[in-house]
Protein backbone atom coordinates (compact mmCIF):
# COMPACT_ATOMS: atom_id res chain seq x y z
CA UNK A 1 0.00 0.00 0.00
CA UNK A 2 1.26 3.42 -0.90
CA UNK A 3 1.45 5.84 2.03
CA UNK A 4 -0.30 9.03 0.92
CA UNK A 5 1.04 12.58 1.12
CA UNK A 6 4.72 11.82 1.72
CA UNK A 7 5.65 14.48 -0.82
CA UNK A 8 2.57 16.39 -1.86
CA UNK A 9 0.55 18.47 0.55
CA UNK A 10 -2.68 17.16 1.94
CA UNK A 11 -5.31 19.70 0.86
CA UNK A 12 -7.00 20.16 4.21
CA UNK A 13 -3.80 20.67 6.26
CA UNK A 14 -1.68 22.19 3.52
CA UNK A 15 1.19 19.96 4.69
CA UNK A 16 2.67 16.59 3.86
CA UNK A 17 1.76 14.18 6.62
CA UNK A 18 5.14 13.56 8.26
CA UNK A 19 5.49 17.26 8.96
CA UNK A 20 2.31 17.28 11.04
CA UNK A 21 3.41 14.04 12.68
CA UNK A 22 6.82 15.30 13.76
CA UNK A 23 5.39 18.52 15.18
CA UNK A 24 2.84 16.59 17.22
CA UNK A 25 5.69 14.41 18.46
CA UNK A 26 7.82 17.46 19.30
CA UNK A 27 4.87 18.94 21.18
CA UNK A 28 4.84 15.82 23.39
CA UNK A 29 8.62 16.12 23.75
CA UNK A 30 8.22 19.68 25.00
CA UNK A 31 5.93 18.32 27.72
CA UNK A 32 8.42 15.55 28.57
CA UNK A 33 11.39 17.88 28.96
CA UNK A 34 9.12 20.57 30.44
CA UNK A 35 8.25 18.19 33.27
CA UNK A 36 11.92 17.56 34.02
CA UNK A 37 12.84 21.23 33.80
CA UNK A 38 10.02 22.21 36.15
CA UNK A 39 11.31 19.54 38.56
CA UNK A 40 14.72 21.21 38.28
CA UNK A 41 13.19 24.61 39.07
CA UNK A 42 11.36 23.15 42.05
CA UNK A 43 14.44 21.41 43.47
CA UNK A 44 16.66 24.41 42.96
CA UNK A 45 14.29 26.99 44.45
CA UNK A 46 13.68 24.72 47.41
CA UNK A 47 17.39 24.18 48.13
CA UNK A 48 18.85 25.79 51.25
CA UNK A 49 21.36 28.63 50.75
CA UNK A 50 24.69 27.11 49.73
CA UNK A 51 23.21 23.66 49.12
CA UNK A 52 22.89 24.05 45.34
CA UNK A 53 26.38 23.48 43.94
CA UNK A 54 28.08 25.70 41.37
CA UNK A 55 31.03 25.13 39.11
CA UNK A 56 31.18 21.35 39.44
CA UNK A 57 31.12 20.68 35.70
CA UNK A 58 33.86 21.20 33.15
CA UNK A 59 32.88 24.42 31.36
CA UNK A 60 35.34 24.36 28.40
CA UNK A 61 34.30 20.80 27.57
CA UNK A 62 30.62 21.72 27.89
CA UNK A 63 31.15 24.77 25.68
CA UNK A 64 32.88 22.62 23.08
CA UNK A 65 30.03 20.12 23.13
CA UNK A 66 27.54 22.97 22.71
CA UNK A 67 29.44 24.22 19.67
CA UNK A 68 29.56 20.68 18.24
CA UNK A 69 25.80 20.32 18.59
CA UNK A 70 25.19 23.72 16.96
CA UNK A 71 27.55 22.81 14.11
CA UNK A 72 25.63 19.57 13.56
CA UNK A 73 22.39 21.53 13.41
CA UNK A 74 23.93 23.62 10.65
CA UNK A 75 25.20 20.59 8.72
CA UNK A 76 21.86 18.80 8.88
CA UNK A 77 20.03 21.80 7.48
CA UNK A 78 22.72 22.03 4.78
CA UNK A 79 22.24 18.33 4.05
CA UNK A 80 18.54 18.99 3.55
CA UNK A 81 19.31 22.00 1.34
CA UNK A 82 21.70 19.87 -0.73
CA UNK A 83 18.92 17.35 -1.37
CA UNK A 84 16.56 20.15 -2.37
CA UNK A 85 19.20 21.21 -4.91
CA UNK A 86 19.64 17.55 -5.96
CA UNK A 87 23.28 17.32 -4.91
CA UNK A 88 23.43 13.85 -3.41
CA UNK A 89 27.21 13.85 -2.96
CA UNK A 90 27.12 17.03 -0.88
CA UNK A 91 24.18 15.60 1.09
CA UNK A 92 26.23 12.48 1.84
CA UNK A 93 29.13 14.51 3.24
CA UNK A 94 26.97 16.87 5.32
CA UNK A 95 25.15 13.88 6.74
CA UNK A 96 28.43 12.17 7.61
CA UNK A 97 29.64 15.28 9.47
CA UNK A 98 26.31 15.47 11.34
CA UNK A 99 26.59 11.84 12.42
CA UNK A 100 30.20 12.31 13.53
CA UNK A 101 29.25 15.40 15.56
CA UNK A 102 26.53 13.42 17.33
CA UNK A 103 28.95 10.58 18.06
CA UNK A 104 31.64 12.96 19.38
CA UNK A 105 29.06 14.62 21.64
CA UNK A 106 28.06 11.25 23.10
CA UNK A 107 31.62 10.00 23.50
CA UNK A 108 32.63 13.17 25.39
CA UNK A 109 29.59 12.81 27.62
CA UNK A 110 29.81 9.08 28.32
CA UNK A 111 33.54 8.44 28.21
CA UNK A 112 34.81 11.65 29.80
CA UNK A 113 32.32 13.89 31.61
CA UNK A 114 30.21 11.29 33.40
CA UNK A 115 33.07 8.98 34.51
CA UNK A 116 34.96 11.97 35.88
CA UNK A 117 31.96 12.71 38.10
CA UNK A 118 31.58 9.08 39.18
CA UNK A 119 35.19 9.27 40.37
CA UNK A 120 34.69 12.45 42.41
CA UNK A 121 33.71 12.47 46.07
CA UNK A 122 31.93 14.89 48.36
CA UNK A 123 31.14 14.84 52.08
CA UNK A 124 28.46 17.21 53.35
CA UNK A 125 29.28 18.22 56.92
CA UNK A 126 26.64 18.23 59.67
CA UNK A 127 25.48 21.77 60.51
CA UNK A 128 26.82 21.69 64.09
CA UNK A 129 30.22 20.42 62.92
CA UNK A 130 30.84 23.07 60.26
CA UNK A 131 33.03 25.07 62.65
CA UNK A 132 35.34 22.08 63.17
CA UNK A 133 36.18 22.05 59.46
CA UNK A 134 36.30 25.82 59.05
CA UNK A 135 39.87 25.68 57.70
CA UNK A 136 38.54 23.71 54.71
CA UNK A 137 35.25 25.59 54.30
CA UNK A 138 36.17 29.23 54.86
CA UNK A 139 32.66 30.18 55.95
CA UNK A 140 33.77 33.17 58.02
CA UNK A 141 35.38 34.60 54.93
CA UNK A 142 32.25 33.89 52.88
CA UNK A 143 29.91 35.42 55.48
CA UNK A 144 32.03 38.59 55.53
CA UNK A 145 31.45 38.96 51.80
CA UNK A 146 27.76 38.11 51.96
CA UNK A 147 28.20 34.81 50.12
CA UNK A 148 26.36 31.53 50.70
CA UNK A 149 28.12 29.11 53.06
CA UNK A 150 29.96 25.93 52.02
CA UNK A 151 28.84 22.69 53.57
CA UNK A 152 30.78 20.17 51.54
CA UNK A 153 34.36 18.99 51.33
CA UNK A 154 35.03 17.44 47.95
CA UNK A 155 37.86 15.92 45.96
CA UNK A 156 39.33 12.47 45.38
CA UNK A 157 38.56 9.89 48.01
CA UNK A 158 41.79 8.12 48.95
CA UNK A 159 40.28 5.35 51.05
CA UNK A 160 37.36 4.27 48.85
CA UNK A 161 36.77 1.23 51.06
CA UNK A 162 35.51 3.66 53.72
CA UNK A 163 32.32 4.11 51.68
CA UNK A 164 31.07 0.64 52.58
CA UNK A 165 33.16 -0.37 55.57
CA UNK A 166 31.32 0.34 58.85
CA UNK A 167 34.60 -0.02 60.78
CA UNK A 168 36.28 2.79 58.89
CA UNK A 169 35.94 5.93 60.99
CA UNK A 170 37.03 8.59 58.52
CA UNK A 171 37.32 9.71 54.92
CA UNK A 172 40.66 10.81 53.51
CA UNK A 173 40.00 13.34 50.79
CA UNK A 174 42.55 14.87 48.44
CA UNK A 175 40.74 18.19 48.35
CA UNK A 176 39.54 20.28 45.46
CA UNK A 177 41.29 23.69 45.40
CA UNK A 178 38.17 25.32 46.79
CA UNK A 179 38.60 23.37 50.06
CA UNK A 180 42.40 23.40 50.02
CA UNK A 181 42.49 27.20 49.92
CA UNK A 182 38.97 28.29 50.98
CA UNK A 183 39.70 31.89 51.97
CA UNK A 184 41.37 32.76 48.68
CA UNK A 185 39.01 35.27 46.99
CA UNK A 186 39.72 33.49 43.69
CA UNK A 187 37.68 30.56 45.07
CA UNK A 188 34.57 32.66 45.77
CA UNK A 189 33.23 32.04 42.28
CA UNK A 190 33.56 29.03 39.98
CA UNK A 191 36.52 28.73 37.64
CA UNK A 192 36.29 28.59 33.88
CA UNK A 193 39.06 26.05 33.50
CA UNK A 194 38.80 22.73 35.27
CA UNK A 195 41.05 22.64 38.32
CA UNK A 196 41.95 19.12 39.48
CA UNK A 197 42.04 18.11 43.14
CA UNK A 198 45.19 19.06 45.03
CA UNK A 199 47.36 16.64 47.00
CA UNK A 200 46.35 18.31 50.25
CA UNK A 201 44.53 15.72 52.34
CA UNK A 202 41.58 16.41 54.63
CA UNK A 203 40.60 13.82 57.19
CA UNK A 204 36.87 13.96 57.78
CA UNK A 205 35.34 11.88 60.52
CA UNK A 206 32.35 9.85 59.40
CA UNK A 207 30.26 10.85 62.39
CA UNK A 208 30.65 14.54 61.42
CA UNK A 209 29.17 13.87 58.00
CA UNK A 210 25.52 14.45 57.11
CA UNK A 211 25.93 12.35 53.99
CA UNK A 212 28.82 11.45 51.71
CA UNK A 213 28.91 9.98 48.25
CA UNK A 214 30.62 9.84 44.93
CA UNK A 215 29.14 12.37 42.46
CA UNK A 216 26.34 9.98 41.46
CA UNK A 217 22.63 10.72 40.96
CA UNK A 218 22.05 9.86 44.62
CA UNK A 219 24.63 12.42 45.76
CA UNK A 220 22.29 15.43 45.54
CA UNK A 221 19.24 16.97 43.90
CA UNK A 222 21.69 18.75 41.59
CA UNK A 223 23.32 15.57 40.32
CA UNK A 224 20.01 13.69 40.23
CA UNK A 225 18.56 16.31 37.87
CA UNK A 226 21.85 16.63 35.97
CA UNK A 227 22.11 12.92 35.19
CA UNK A 228 18.39 12.57 34.46
CA UNK A 229 18.19 15.49 32.04
CA UNK A 230 21.54 14.98 30.30
CA UNK A 231 20.83 11.23 30.20
CA UNK A 232 17.48 11.70 28.50
CA UNK A 233 19.02 14.30 26.22
CA UNK A 234 21.85 11.90 25.39
CA UNK A 235 19.31 9.21 24.54
CA UNK A 236 17.76 11.67 22.09
CA UNK A 237 21.15 12.36 20.53
CA UNK A 238 21.69 8.61 20.13
CA UNK A 239 18.24 8.23 18.54
CA UNK A 240 18.95 11.06 16.13
CA UNK A 241 22.32 9.57 15.17
CA UNK A 242 20.71 6.18 14.42
CA UNK A 243 18.03 7.77 12.21
CA UNK A 244 20.64 9.86 10.37
CA UNK A 245 22.77 6.75 9.90
CA UNK A 246 19.85 5.02 8.20
CA UNK A 247 19.31 8.02 5.92
CA UNK A 248 23.02 8.17 5.11
CA UNK A 249 23.43 4.47 4.24
CA UNK A 250 22.97 3.23 0.65
CA UNK A 251 19.42 1.98 1.38
CA UNK A 252 18.25 5.58 1.39
CA UNK A 253 19.80 6.26 -2.01
CA UNK A 254 17.03 4.05 -3.41
CA UNK A 255 14.48 6.45 -1.97
CA UNK A 256 16.40 9.33 -3.51
CA UNK A 257 16.41 7.68 -6.93
CA UNK A 258 12.71 6.92 -6.78
CA UNK A 259 11.75 10.38 -5.57
CA UNK A 260 14.42 12.81 -4.26
CA UNK A 261 11.78 14.97 -2.62
CA UNK A 262 10.74 12.02 -0.46
CA UNK A 263 14.23 11.67 1.02
CA UNK A 264 14.47 15.45 1.40
CA UNK A 265 11.28 15.41 3.44
CA UNK A 266 12.53 12.56 5.61
CA UNK A 267 15.72 14.50 6.28
CA UNK A 268 13.70 17.62 7.06
CA UNK A 269 11.62 15.73 9.62
CA UNK A 270 14.65 14.07 11.23
CA UNK A 271 16.33 17.48 11.13
CA UNK A 272 13.42 19.06 13.01
CA UNK A 273 13.92 16.46 15.72
CA UNK A 274 17.66 17.17 15.76
CA UNK A 275 17.14 20.93 16.05
CA UNK A 276 14.78 20.32 18.96
CA UNK A 277 17.48 18.26 20.69
CA UNK A 278 19.89 21.15 20.07
CA UNK A 279 17.31 23.58 21.46
CA UNK A 280 16.97 21.56 24.68
CA UNK A 281 20.75 21.60 25.09
CA UNK A 282 20.76 25.40 24.72
CA UNK A 283 18.90 25.49 28.06
CA UNK A 284 20.68 22.53 29.68
CA UNK A 285 24.12 24.05 29.16
CA UNK A 286 23.72 27.30 31.15
CA UNK A 287 21.45 25.77 33.80
CA UNK A 288 23.85 22.99 34.78
CA UNK A 289 27.30 24.17 33.68
CA UNK A 290 27.24 27.91 34.21
CA UNK A 291 24.75 28.94 36.87
Amino acid sequence: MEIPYTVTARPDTGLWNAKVGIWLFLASEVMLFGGLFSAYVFLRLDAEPGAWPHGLLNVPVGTMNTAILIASSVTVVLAWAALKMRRYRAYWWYMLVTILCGVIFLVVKLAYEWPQKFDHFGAVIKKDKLEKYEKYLGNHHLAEHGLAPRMEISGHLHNKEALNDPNAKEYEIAMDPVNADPTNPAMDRPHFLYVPPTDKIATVEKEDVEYANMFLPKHSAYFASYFTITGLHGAHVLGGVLVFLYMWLPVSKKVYKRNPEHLANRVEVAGLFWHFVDLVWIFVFPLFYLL
Partner: protein
Amino acid sequence: MNEIQEPSLAETTPVGTSPEAVHDEHAAHNVAKHVRKYLLVGATLITFTAITVFLSYVNFGTMKANVAVAMAVATFKAALVAAIFMHLSNEKRLIYRILVFTAFFVLGLFFLTYLAWYDPVTR
Protein backbone atom coordinates in the same frame (compact mmCIF):
# COMPACT_ATOMS: atom_id res chain seq x y z
CA MET B 1 -14.70 17.58 7.17
CA ASN B 2 -14.93 14.05 8.43
CA GLU B 3 -14.64 11.69 5.51
CA ILE B 4 -12.01 12.37 2.90
CA GLN B 5 -12.44 10.63 -0.42
CA GLU B 6 -9.06 9.56 -1.73
CA PRO B 7 -9.80 9.61 -5.47
CA SER B 8 -11.11 13.16 -5.54
CA LEU B 9 -8.10 14.37 -3.57
CA ALA B 10 -5.69 12.66 -5.91
CA GLU B 11 -7.25 14.59 -8.72
CA THR B 12 -7.27 17.96 -7.01
CA THR B 13 -3.76 17.90 -5.52
CA PRO B 14 -1.68 18.59 -8.66
CA VAL B 15 -4.03 21.37 -9.76
CA GLY B 16 -3.22 23.46 -6.71
CA THR B 17 0.53 23.30 -7.24
CA SER B 18 2.66 24.26 -10.17
CA PRO B 19 3.96 21.49 -12.44
CA GLU B 20 6.61 19.38 -10.72
CA ALA B 21 9.65 20.52 -12.76
CA VAL B 22 8.93 24.22 -12.42
CA HIS B 23 8.19 23.77 -8.74
CA ASP B 24 11.52 22.00 -8.15
CA GLU B 25 13.56 24.63 -9.91
CA HIS B 26 11.85 27.37 -7.97
CA ALA B 27 12.41 25.54 -4.68
CA ALA B 28 16.08 24.83 -5.47
CA HIS B 29 16.67 28.49 -6.20
CA ASN B 30 15.06 29.48 -2.91
CA VAL B 31 17.08 26.93 -0.96
CA ALA B 32 20.36 28.14 -2.46
CA LYS B 33 19.54 31.62 -1.22
CA HIS B 34 18.98 30.28 2.29
CA VAL B 35 22.29 28.43 2.66
CA ARG B 36 24.16 31.64 3.53
CA LYS B 37 21.54 32.45 6.13
CA TYR B 38 21.95 29.03 7.76
CA LEU B 39 25.70 29.50 8.05
CA LEU B 40 25.21 32.96 9.49
CA VAL B 41 22.73 31.69 12.09
CA GLY B 42 25.16 28.90 13.04
CA ALA B 43 27.94 31.45 13.56
CA THR B 44 25.60 33.67 15.61
CA LEU B 45 24.62 30.74 17.83
CA ILE B 46 28.24 29.85 18.54
CA THR B 47 29.06 33.50 19.23
CA PHE B 48 26.20 33.73 21.71
CA THR B 49 27.35 30.51 23.36
CA ALA B 50 30.68 32.23 24.01
CA ILE B 51 28.82 35.34 25.23
CA THR B 52 26.71 33.38 27.68
CA VAL B 53 29.81 31.62 29.05
CA PHE B 54 31.50 35.00 29.48
CA LEU B 55 28.44 36.59 31.12
CA SER B 56 28.18 33.75 33.64
CA TYR B 57 31.50 34.92 35.12
CA VAL B 58 30.27 38.50 35.40
CA ASN B 59 28.71 39.26 38.76
CA PHE B 60 25.28 40.85 38.19
CA GLY B 61 24.72 41.28 41.91
CA THR B 62 22.56 38.28 42.67
CA MET B 63 22.42 34.74 41.36
CA LYS B 64 18.84 35.47 40.25
CA ALA B 65 20.08 38.26 38.01
CA ASN B 66 22.72 35.97 36.48
CA VAL B 67 20.07 33.31 35.85
CA ALA B 68 17.80 35.90 34.20
CA VAL B 69 20.62 37.09 31.90
CA ALA B 70 21.60 33.54 30.93
CA MET B 71 17.98 32.56 30.27
CA ALA B 72 17.47 35.66 28.12
CA VAL B 73 20.45 34.69 25.96
CA ALA B 74 19.29 31.04 25.81
CA THR B 75 15.78 32.10 24.79
CA PHE B 76 17.20 34.25 22.03
CA LYS B 77 19.33 31.33 20.78
CA ALA B 78 16.38 28.94 20.99
CA ALA B 79 14.21 31.40 19.07
CA LEU B 80 16.84 31.57 16.31
CA VAL B 81 16.97 27.77 16.07
CA ALA B 82 13.18 27.52 15.97
CA ALA B 83 12.63 30.36 13.50
CA ILE B 84 15.40 29.59 11.00
CA PHE B 85 16.56 25.98 11.33
CA MET B 86 13.09 24.67 12.09
CA HIS B 87 11.49 26.98 9.49
CA LEU B 88 8.98 28.35 12.00
CA SER B 89 9.37 31.85 10.60
CA ASN B 90 7.43 30.65 7.58
CA GLU B 91 5.21 27.70 8.42
CA LYS B 92 1.62 26.62 7.84
CA ARG B 93 -1.12 27.66 10.22
CA LEU B 94 -1.76 24.14 11.55
CA ILE B 95 1.77 23.94 12.99
CA TYR B 96 1.30 27.24 14.82
CA ARG B 97 -1.98 25.95 16.23
CA ILE B 98 -0.26 22.84 17.57
CA LEU B 99 2.41 25.03 19.16
CA VAL B 100 -0.05 27.40 20.79
CA PHE B 101 -1.60 24.43 22.57
CA THR B 102 1.86 23.18 23.54
CA ALA B 103 2.89 26.57 24.93
CA PHE B 104 -0.34 26.78 26.92
CA PHE B 105 0.14 23.38 28.52
CA VAL B 106 3.85 23.73 29.21
CA LEU B 107 3.26 27.09 30.90
CA GLY B 108 0.53 25.40 32.93
CA LEU B 109 3.05 22.76 33.90
CA PHE B 110 5.52 25.35 35.18
CA PHE B 111 2.71 27.12 36.99
CA LEU B 112 2.08 23.87 38.92
CA THR B 113 5.63 24.16 40.24
CA TYR B 114 4.81 27.64 41.47
CA LEU B 115 1.70 26.27 43.20
CA ALA B 116 3.95 24.01 45.29
CA TRP B 117 4.60 27.01 47.55
CA TYR B 118 0.98 28.10 47.72
CA ASP B 119 -0.09 28.09 51.34
CA PRO B 120 -3.37 29.86 52.14
CA VAL B 121 -3.32 28.87 55.84
CA THR B 122 -0.01 30.07 57.28
CA ARG B 123 1.13 32.68 54.81
